[in-house]
């Protein structure tokens, strides 16, 4: 396993795993990202979807169980901040892997993903004898990854608009606010539905896949879903590339400076987002009560 700044020999680790019949799947960075996403996404769904489906009594029960709609909205915003931090962390670790470790980018979709999808369906339906041999990230995982990228982008963007509608409409037309509300809600439905149907099926029902927590996959699962990666590793390929130490140190220095700047900017941006405007959330008192007892001049009684 590799920690940033304290690299161990990847080859040694691989040897140790293989002796137990396991193969490296996710490094610690990715697992932390997943936990951040898992927690924030779940909270966002639980606090957000009842607001979209307000008319259902279960939504209303959930909202009141969580302390009322104003509390729920504050939880939602804090969970959003966690999600954004997770997203920034992912961008930084991805940048580290691409620009410091010089790993190959293996999540971009290509034509083989389309044929793998076709062959998987044909195999499932019994038209093909063998399943397609797939790489470290198969078509389903790539689909999920890019769905999360798209979804998170949409949610952060539209969420910012809903958080700061007055500031946004100083620049953009007012119509964008109801559109953002609709998009934020529908995208949430899409994401939740995809996670339940696709992700939970694949990691809980199809197999009970713990690799996002343990970091490793068994040989059997590698064979079924990542046969090409298994072949590559068996042929002596390394799970993760590792540049020579002096080059690595040099790149790391540049990276950490850039990452620190990005992190500072992110924190500043989040703070700015929280305090961007006031009167959308804490409005002024809407109605003042006038003097109500102003009798006409009439005799007593």
């Amino acid at each position, binding site marked *: 396993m590799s920690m940033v700044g304290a690299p161990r020999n990847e080859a040694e680790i691989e040897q140790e795993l293989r002796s137990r019949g396991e193969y490296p799947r996710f490094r610690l960075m990715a697992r932390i990202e997943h936990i951040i996403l898992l927690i924030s996404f779940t909270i966002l769904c639980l606090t957000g979807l009842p*607001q979209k489906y*307000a*008319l259902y009594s279960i939504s*209303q029960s959930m*909202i*009141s169980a969580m302390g*009322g*709609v*104003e509390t729920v909205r504050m939880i939602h915003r804090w969970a959003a901040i966690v999600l954004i931090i997770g997203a920034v962390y992912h961008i930084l670790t991805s940048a580290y892997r691409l620009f410091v470790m010089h790993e190959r980018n293996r999540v971009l979709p290509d034509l083989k993903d389309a044929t793998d999808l076709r062959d998987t*369906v044909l*195999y*499932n*339906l*019994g038209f093909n004898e063998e399943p397609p041999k797939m790489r470290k990230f198969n078509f*389903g995982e790539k689909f999920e990854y890019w769905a999360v990228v798209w979804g998170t982008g949409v949610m952060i963007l539209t969420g910012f608009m809903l958080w700061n*509608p*007055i*500031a946004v*409409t*100083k620049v*953009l*037309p*007012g*119509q*964008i*606010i*109801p*559109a953002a*509300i*609709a*998009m934020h809600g*529908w*995208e949430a*439905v*899409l994401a939740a*539905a*995809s996670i339940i*149907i*696709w992700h939970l*099926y694949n990691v809980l029902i*199809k197999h009970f896949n713990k690799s996002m927590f343990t970091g490793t996959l068994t040989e059997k699962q590698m064979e079924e879903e990542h046969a090409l990666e298994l072949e590559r590793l068996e042929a002596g390929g390394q799970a993760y590339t590792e540049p020579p130490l002096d080059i690595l140190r040099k790149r790391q220095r540049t990276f950490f400076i850039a990452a620190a700047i990005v992190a500072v900017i992110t924190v500043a941006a989040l703070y700015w987002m929280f305090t961007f405007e*006031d*009167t*959308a959330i*804490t*409005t*002024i*008192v*809407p*109605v003042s*009560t*006038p*003097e*109500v*007892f*102003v*009798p*006409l001049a009439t005799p*007593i*009684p």
Partner: protein
Amino acid sequence: MTNLDLVKRALAALTLLLVVGGLLGFFFWQPAAAETAVAPQEAPALEVAPLGTILQQDDQQAAQPPSDAACISCHSTTDATVTFESGETVSVHVDPNSLAASAHGMAADPLACTSCHDANAYQFPHASVAEVDVRSFEIAQSEACVRCHAPNHLTAHPGLESENPVICTDCHTSHDVQPVDYWYTLDATTVCADCHVERGVELTDQAALSEHIQAGLFSQTQQTSEFCMGCHAAPNQTMIFPNGDEVSITVDGTGLHDSVHGIDNEWQALECVDCHTSVVFPHEPKTAESAREYSIEQTQLCANCHETQHEDASVSVHAMALAEGNLNAAVCTDCHGFHDTPVPNEPRARIPETCEQCHSTIFNDYAISVHGHALLDEDNPDVPSCVDCHGVHNISDPTTASFRNRSPELCATCHANEEMMAQYGISTDVFDTYVADFHGTTVTIFESDDPNVETNKAVCYDCHGIHAILSPDDPENGIKENLLITCQKCHPDASSNFPDAWTGHHRPTLQDNPLLFLVNLFYAIVIPATVGFLGFLVATDLYRKVRGR
């Protein structure tokens, strides 16, 4: 017998009659003040002849007149009785305290026992009573009264010459004789009622009694309004309260007759005492300090019949204010009037005009609103008057969080009614589109059930006005012309683009809200497509699993 003889005899008889009559008249003559009726406020002391002269005149001066102390020493403690020949017995006990508190005991020159009881007859040891029965004894004793008091007011009662005379002590009792003031109180009438009502003794000479005593006490006809109106119909009569408030007690009989309680009352035309149940004649003094306090007290009378309304009103904002000591808070009569109570909602404009009596500035706002204009100027039957929103008797506090949170539903009762709105060409989408919006969802769904949540999200009246609700299209002050100003009431930083964030109660269409419409359209395609695609993949995989591959 000649005519002359007849005249002579008649003259002789007449002379005799005049002489006898003159003598009798002289004997019984008393100063006029003792017999004329006196006003209850200023009952003069009874004029009585000087005691000494009477005693000297009647009394043969006993050698040793018994002292009061001697009489009381036995009669205050004894439980001895006197037995008459008839077998009747009478206690000889006398309560010295009630005697001292009586008119005779309280007199400037208190009476002694022997002032009434013949000193000669009561030498000690006492001789046995001469009378054969109690009644004869009482009659004999009552002759002592007329030694001081003229028996004039007994003229209507049968005198001693009759077989069943009414004697002084029958009404005044013997030892605890009440002073004159007492006879002008309500209690005194029970003495008369004992015989004339309870025992049914008929009046011998009704004309001798005042009209009120005749009608009210003896015929029990004070239950009729005519009896009350005998006094209360007269104009310019007033009653003054301890704090100086002077109010008219003249009752407009015609107004009462024409009121809801009058001739058209489904139950029956009400008599005065149907409401004023505890008022009897003569009247008891009022306990209220002021006219307002009296009005508030009197509203309890309404509750006797209008129980439901009274219960509703007792939880109203008016009742709460009253309970907090605000005497200005409206009670029944402030809205409904009294005596000339009209049908409260006929014409319908009467409703806001009633509330105007206290809430004049709010009325002015209402009067210029679309609702007020339609009601007051066009007698429109659909627009809300005050009570349609605030309730009739159980008027709740409109400044509470729960009123605010539920107010959109209040507006929706009419504005979501398609049949009603169709007449005026008003969209019924207003409520649904509000609920679908951020403000509406928050208020009507998440906060409506919790009266403690103070919401700052806009409700209908934050934008459209509370009472001065104008048409949205009003060229000058309509909300469409002033949308930015309206938004800025809560969102002061809002810029000119911001009002477009509100979809204007329109359902999203390509024309009205193209961006929103397109977003909805996009997801209407993408969501089913994605779910369908992923579902298909999962289904094929399950198919594989089922086949055991």
